[in-house]
């Protein structure tokens, strides 16, 4: 289970490292065996030649029976670490570095045959030696020579060090190679992730760049065609809503027009007809508002070609918007300097109007409208002194047909449930952010942040209902 959680990159690295380690270990072991075997063999052969000649000299000496055996043996030793032992019926004769005959490996002498010397490697008093034993030809006895292997051992040690270090280094290199290869292979996935996230955020036009590699090309192709299908689907749905709204306009025009004619004759009607007409008119009014809002949203869903953008000064726009609003006029808190945003003026008007309308409808009317620029962002705030928006509804109120606490309420004054959704759509289209928050001192505030020119923001405060009764503020931020 842990393995499943390990990242692919880690697993690829580990596989590369282990694989390389195994391969290089096998190679190193083979190298070790071949090299040491060869070197030992060479050493043994030279030791054999050496010992054969020496044994013959000892044989001659023993045959002539002179007393120079000890001297001869001393002369035959080839270095301070070499030892010669000769076993004669009279006992052992040794020369060179003193080694007791008992230290010789058991079985060495018994294996020695004339013409076929016996060999053995062992450590005699701390010195690695190669023992060569052969029987003497003239007497019952053996000639044993211990050749020191200090140099050979040193070579072996170095070789071992190099092989082990090399193997480990190769393992590490394998890990690094695996990490690099995995990162390189996974790099396109980062682009995939980013693109998928953009689509999830609502950017239906996000697509993957075409992949040159044959491995990822099919994935990118599939991804892009899926995104195409999704975009078409979303557009088709949006177009359907737009088409329905468009189709509703004609009958609605006829109905409202005829209802107006009736209304002008209201006084001539009996009371029940008057009441019925009143209901009809109220419903038609709501219906018309809803169709207009739906058309507005349908327009938002269509691609923005940016043609409608112009530099708009938010100050005068707010002043005009507030002055044109039927609600009681709130306090204006506007920055003295021009607040220029690149925006579609009509949409900005609509944002402000809807925020003011929302404040009037649910928050007792806007009490303060502010517009300021801060850190390259223009912020518009609309405050009301109503009961505020509960924290858990502050995001939902910007969804279509969501009416916060007033869901389910239907009377002549209730809204269509689309006003704040239109605000959110327009603000989103201007790369802004809109949010609701509790207003310090009570009521709700909605604020809208919008990039100023290229990177500023406008923000409007919208009245909104918040958690503490009588003390909240709603902010719509774009």
């Amino acid at each position: 289970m842990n393995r499943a959680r390990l990242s692919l990159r880690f697993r690829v690295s580990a596989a590369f490292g282990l694989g390389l380690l195994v391969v290089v270990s096998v190679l190193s072991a083979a190298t070790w065996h071949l090299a040491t075997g060869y070197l030992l063999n060479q050493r043994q052969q030279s030791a054999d030649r050496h010992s054969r000649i020496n044994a013959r000299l000892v044989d001659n000496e023993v045959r002539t029976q002179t007393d120079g055996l000890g001297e001869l043996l001393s002369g035959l030793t080839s270095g301070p670490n070499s030892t010669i032992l000769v076993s004669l019926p009279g006992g052992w004769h040794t020369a060179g570095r003193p080694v007791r005959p008992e230290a010789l490996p058991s079985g060495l002498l018994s294996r020695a045959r004339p013409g076929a010397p016996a060999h053995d490697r062992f450590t005699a008093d701390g010195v690695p030696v190669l023992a060569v034993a052969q029987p003497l030809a003239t007497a019952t006895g053996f000639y044993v020579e211990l050749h020191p292997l200090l140099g050979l051992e040193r070579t072996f040690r170095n070789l071992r060090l190099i092989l082990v270090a090399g193997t480990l280094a190769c393992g590490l290199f394998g890990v690094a190679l695996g990490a690099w290869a995995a990162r390189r292979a996974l790099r396109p996935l980062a682009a995939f992730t980013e693109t998928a996230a953009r689509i999830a955020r609502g950017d239906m036009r996000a697509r993957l760049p075409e992949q040159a590699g044959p491995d990822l090309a099919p994935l990118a192709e599939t991804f892009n065609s899926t995104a195409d299908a999704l975009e078409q689907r979303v557009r088709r749905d949006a177009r359907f809503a737009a088409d329905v709204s468009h189709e509703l306009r004609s009958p609605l025009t006829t109905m409202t027009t005829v209802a107006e004619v009736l209304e002008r004759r209201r006084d001539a009607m009996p009371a029940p007809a008057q009441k019925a007409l009143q209901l009809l008119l109220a419903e038609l009014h709501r219906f018309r508002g809803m169709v207009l809002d739906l058309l507005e949203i349908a327009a938002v869903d269509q691609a923005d070609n940016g043609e409608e953008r112009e530099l708009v000064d938010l100050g005068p726009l707010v002043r005009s918007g507030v002055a044109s609003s039927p609600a009681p006029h709130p306090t204006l808190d506007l920055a003295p300097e021009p607040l220029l945003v690149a925006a579609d003026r009509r949409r900005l008007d609509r944002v402000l109007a809807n925020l003011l309308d929302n404040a009037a409808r649910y928050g007792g009317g806007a009490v303060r409208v502010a517009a300021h620029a801060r850190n390259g962002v223009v912020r518009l705030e609309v405050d009301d002194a109503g009961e505020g928006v509960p924290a858990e509804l502050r995001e939902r109120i910007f969804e279509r047909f969501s009416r916060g606490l007033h869901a389910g309420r239907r009377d002549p004054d209730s809204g269509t449930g689309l006003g704040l959704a239109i605000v959110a759509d327009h603000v989103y289209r201007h790369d802004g952010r809109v949010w609701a928050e509790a207003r310090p001192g009570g009521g709700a505030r909605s604020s809208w942040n919008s990039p100023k020119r290229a990177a500023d923001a406008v923000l409007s405060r919208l009245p909104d209902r918040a958690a503490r009764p009588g003390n909240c503020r709603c902010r719509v931020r774009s």
Partner: protein
Amino acid sequence: MTVRVLLVEDDALISEALSLALADQGCMVTQAACGEDALSMLDSVSVDVVLLDLMLPGMDGLAVCRELRVRGDLPVIVITARADSQDVIAGLEAGADDYVTKPLVAGELAARVRALLRRAAPVRRCCLQVGDLLLSTHDETVSRNGSPIRLTRTEFRLLAELAAAEGEVVTREQLLHRIWGRDYFGGTRLLDVHIRRLRRKVEPDPDCPHLVLTVRGIGYRAKPQQ
């Protein structure tokens, strides 16, 4: 005064209902179901204003609008699909004086018609001047160095409002209210396109205006007299 209206609308139900409602508001309505009918009717019937649906079978509403402009400066109100669509701009560019959007309200439409037919701004002087343009308010004509420039009534009223302010700024709201009887909302394109149309007719270089000047974020002003 009875206003004579030519209603060009292909939807028979809407046409009937609007005729009924406009008649109720004191208008005399003549109905036409397509552009060709409307244009031929105008030869025999005299009307004060044309209500023109842009979506017509056969001859396109925009083409009808342009043809009306070629014939004269009969006020035209177009009925467009949407307030924000290119329809509004296209209709105004084609020469319409105002627009209404579906679903429309007859009372509002009647108000549009009345605003359009109102006399030009309270006349303080019979002659106004902007740069080298001479405006005569009693017959609503403009001339430059003696040669007349053809403006529609709405264009003339716009220019006259600016000229009457003698170089002072006239806000967008004031212009929208005085000329179209509209409040601030929804009038943006209306004013922008009319200013553009006006500049094309009176400015030597419309891209670099020096007679009708923009005061960004506030409104417009005419070139002050020396």
